[in-house]
């Protein structure tokens, strides 16, 4: 189920996002309310509810089964493999943000892990002290000075403000997995990556469930803080209390 689900998600992503963005903006004028951090809240909350159902009955059970059945070294290799596939785009974004030293490391990682690390299954580069960076096109646009453009919650994709939604759409063009043929293999890979990502979030599920007074708001504010931290590479200036 997840397989065909992901396949259609990949295929229709860009078209769908553009349509939904337009819809969100159309709604915003009429629906705008209190929280300045969440101008599209009345669009987001129903989307969040939809996602909760998808997650409960599809994504989470599959991720749990994956987590229980697959031995740790295999899971680590799956994570490493997709990490390696993403390192080229990470490097491009490091360069676009003017961090050429980081970009060099990212490319070095790609070369080492693709060869010595056997197609990226082993993260040899990290063992050698070449640290993995956390960059994407959403962060690049932020560094260039683009505003966040309001918080959005998408089913399946989760929380992304307008800037990160555009960043994600651009990123799908730079995703090596999307060029894998035959299409059935590409879809299986996309599905596996989705399950791997969801499985990596399992430990935080219980924390969020128990910690939040309002799960929607807890996830939104966590997303906003986390992205800010990423944009400033882990050293955001302090906000006033």
């Amino acid at each position, binding site marked *: 189920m997840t397989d065909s689900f992901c396949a259609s998600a990949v295929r229709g992503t860009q078209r769908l996002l553009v349509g939904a963005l337009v819809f969100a903006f159309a709604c915003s004028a009429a629906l705008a309310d209190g929280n300045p951090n969440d101008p599209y809240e009345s669009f987001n909350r129903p989307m969040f509810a939809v996602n909760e159902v998808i997650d409960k009955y599809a994504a989470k059970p599959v991720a749990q089964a994956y987590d229980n059945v697959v031995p740790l070294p295999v899971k680590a290799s799956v*994570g490493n493999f997709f990490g390696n596939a993403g390192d080229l785009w990470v490097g491009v974004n490091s360069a676009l943000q003017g961090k050429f030293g980081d970009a060099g490391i990212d490319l070095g990682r790609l070369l080492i892990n693709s060869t010595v690390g056997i197609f990226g299954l082993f*993260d040899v580069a990290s063992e050698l002290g070449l640290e993995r960076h956390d960059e994407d096109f959403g962060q690049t646009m932020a560094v260039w000075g683009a505003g966040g453009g309001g918080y959005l919650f998408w089913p399946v994709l989760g929380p992304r403000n307008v800037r990160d939604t555009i960043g994600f759409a651009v990123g799908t063009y730079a995703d090596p997995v999307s060029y894998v043929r035959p299409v059935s293999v590409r879809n299986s890979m996309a599905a596996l990556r989705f399950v791997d990502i969801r499985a990596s979030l399992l430990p935080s599920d*219980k924390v969020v469930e128990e910690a939040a*007074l*309002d799960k929607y*708001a807890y996830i939104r504010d966590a997303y906003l803080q986390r992205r800010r931290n990423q944009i400033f590479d882990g050293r955001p200036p302090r906000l006033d209390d």
Partner: protein
Amino acid sequence: MLVQRVTDDVLEIIRKDKDIQNGDTHKVIELVDKKVLPHFNFSHMTALALGKEWRKASPQQQQQLTAEFKTLLVRTYANALTGYKNQKVVYKPTKMAPTDTDVLVRTEVQQPGSKPVQLDYSLEKLESGWKVYDVVVAGISLVTNYRDQFGQEVRNGGIDGLIASVAAKNKSLEANSKK
């Protein structure tokens, strides 16, 4: 350094305790109570979470809210610890002068196959020693992440409404864990 001593101490116990690894929340809370809590400043944490409204609250309200928020945070922190299995904690160098009274301790949790997770502690120097007043996971402050939710509750039912909400949340979590 305090953070390193306490962390190593606690993780060592968790590593040896199968009950905790299997998700025994009560046992972790006991452990956290004994080893970690003495080093936390919960009234500062609660003030941070509440923001401007803190000063408008009466001392009694501040006390009640701190007590309830402490219960909630301890459970969150304990739950995060039960997920601890194969990770390694790495301490980053901390820049500080001997005269500093406020310091950020940066650590990183590394696990196979995943990106390392940044875990930072803000500490302040009080008469009773260094106390943690904020815990930041991957850039997400476990404390200020409540700012909007608390604000919402205060708008709906005042400070007392907020205290009641957090208390109700704690009660329902306690009831669930007994099942």
